[in-house]
């Protein structure tokens, strides 16, 4: 069979060649979409001219962008942004899973505590939470392990020393993230068929094993897409920590442009790094989604046949 051009802009009428061995097949002329084709052409022209404009406009200072793209300060900032994202998301997902299971508990006190946590951490601005943890020493100058209601305690150290700006940032981001993840994971657990619990129990599983082996792997399928969203918004949300004077990616760029006044080029540098990291993270999200989609989306397992142009 003849390979046909798939570009819709080609105005050629496809001439199907009859295949000799299948005499019963009828040639099919695909429906053409002239308006769709015209719109596509216009869009391509607009995109090309916009790109050309950006590339040719001297005021973007692409030379500055390139000179700072791999500067040590920017690279360190990007690294810190990545560390903040990975650590906060990891803690957030772990704590969120615990909160989700607590929220689903039959014990009303346990579920109410989880509900209260989620209510509080989702209901107050992240920026406020970050500044709160940064200033925790004002409320609790000394951190100690001890019995409640004024019982004996062991002093661990000064809050100012223990909770560094980075510590405050990680604490704020993780605890906030846990509240959102808890709701996402609760939704995922709720999406698993009740018959799965029956089947697992009938096979002698209980509590943790039932969750780990049967329920959570199935919940993952529902949990992953919104979690990918959370990771990406966390990556960019970490830029909030610049209020705590932590030199993350955006803050590093800000420091540089406050010296050399090249505001736009340095914001472009930061954006390029954010884009790159987002792209890499999305790639891993796709892989994970495929991994946990096994057995659900049956069509993805079968090798796709090339689209036949002839109907038999």
């Amino acid at each position, binding site marked *: 069979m003849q390979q046909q051009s798939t570009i819709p802009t080609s105005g050629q009428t496809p001439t199907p060649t009859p295949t000799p061995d299948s005499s019963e097949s009828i040639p099919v002329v695909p429906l053409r979409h002239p308006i769709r084709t015209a719109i596509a052409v216009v869009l391509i022209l607009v995109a090309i001219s916009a790109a050309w404009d950006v590339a040719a406009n001297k005021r973007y200072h692409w030379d500055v962008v390139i000179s700072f793209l791999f500067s040590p300060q920017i690279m360190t900032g990007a690294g810190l942004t990545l560390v903040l994202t990975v650590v906060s998301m990891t803690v957030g997902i772990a704590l969120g899973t615990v909160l989700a299971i607590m929220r689903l508990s039959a014990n009303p006190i346990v579920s109410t505590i989880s509900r209260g946590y989620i209510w509080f951490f989702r209901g107050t601005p992240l920026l406020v939470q970050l500044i709160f943890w940064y200033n925790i020493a004002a409320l609790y100058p000394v951190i100690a392990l001890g019995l409640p209601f004024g019982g004996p305690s062991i002093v661990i150290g000064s809050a100012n020393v223990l909770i560094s700006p980075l510590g405050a940032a990680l604490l704020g981001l993780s605890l906030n993230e846990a509240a959102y993840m808890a709701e996402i994971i609760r939704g995922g657990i709720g999406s698993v*068929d009740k*018959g*799965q619990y*029956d*089947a*697992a*129990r*009938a*096979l*002698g*599983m*209980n*509590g943790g*094993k039932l969750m780990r*082996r*049967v329920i959570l*792997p*199935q919940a993952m*399928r529902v949990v992953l897409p919104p979690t990918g969203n959370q990771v990406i918004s966390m990556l960019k949300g970490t830029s909030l920590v610049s209020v705590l004077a932590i030199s993350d990616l955006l803050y590093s760029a800000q420091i540089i442009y406050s010296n050399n006044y090249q505001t736009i080029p340095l914001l472009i540098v930061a954006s390029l790094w954010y884009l790159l990291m987002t792209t890499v993270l999305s790639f891993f999200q796709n892989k994970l989604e495929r991994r*946990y989609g*096994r*057995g*659900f989306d*049956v069509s993805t*397992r079968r090798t796709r046949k090339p689209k036949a142009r002839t109907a038999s």
Partner: protein
Amino acid sequence: MTTAMVEAKGVRKSFGSTEILKGIDLRVERGSVTCLIGPSGSGKTTFLRCINHLEKVDAGRLYVDENLVGYAERNGKLYEMQERQTARSRLNAGMVFQRFNLFPHMTVMENVVEAPIHVLGRPRKDVTAEAQVLLDRVGLGDRGDAYPQELSGGQQQRIAIARALAMKPKLMLFDEPTSALDPELVGEVLDVMKSLAEAGMTMVVVTHELAFAKQVADQVIFMDQGVVVESGPPQDVLGNPQHERTKAFLSKVL
């Protein structure tokens, strides 16, 4: 007289204010096949789930293999079992569900070996070899790598039976195993169940397949509105029913 595999004495169960089981008494002998029949809402499925302690018994006593289900009896009191103990006691019985409930994220083979490996802690190599024998027995020896959703309902239900058998239960519970199947797929599942009965497995089957009951069952129990109305050999209960309610039910079904 040998002891029964399942013995129920005045078993009661309510959901909220609705009483589903109003005092069930019955015996299931070892190596016998018991079919529970009756209109929907009669409590057959609930009773079956009580045998496996998927539902808690509110009153009365239910013994499986001489052990009280879900409770420990000490000093004239019944103590509710720890979840872990309950899970252990469930190992006596294998259960097959109306909607198969295979684990969709695992292949057929993984479904079958899951519990023997992760609950009983047996070596994977032994379990896999046994699982292959079981899959061959239900006629699906070549589908070990498939995922449940790639199989027909009848095939899924046969896998579910193999999965339950892999735990080497003393008793098999079937909850309307063919009700969710297309008519042409019912036969293949019933054939597997028949061969299981011939091999001497003790079985309790909730079913609407009266032909199967007539052919395979040693005992047929007709339940209605939470009580056992009539029980006995199939030729009596199905062929010559004594109670009006049994007659009314059979005349609608047959």
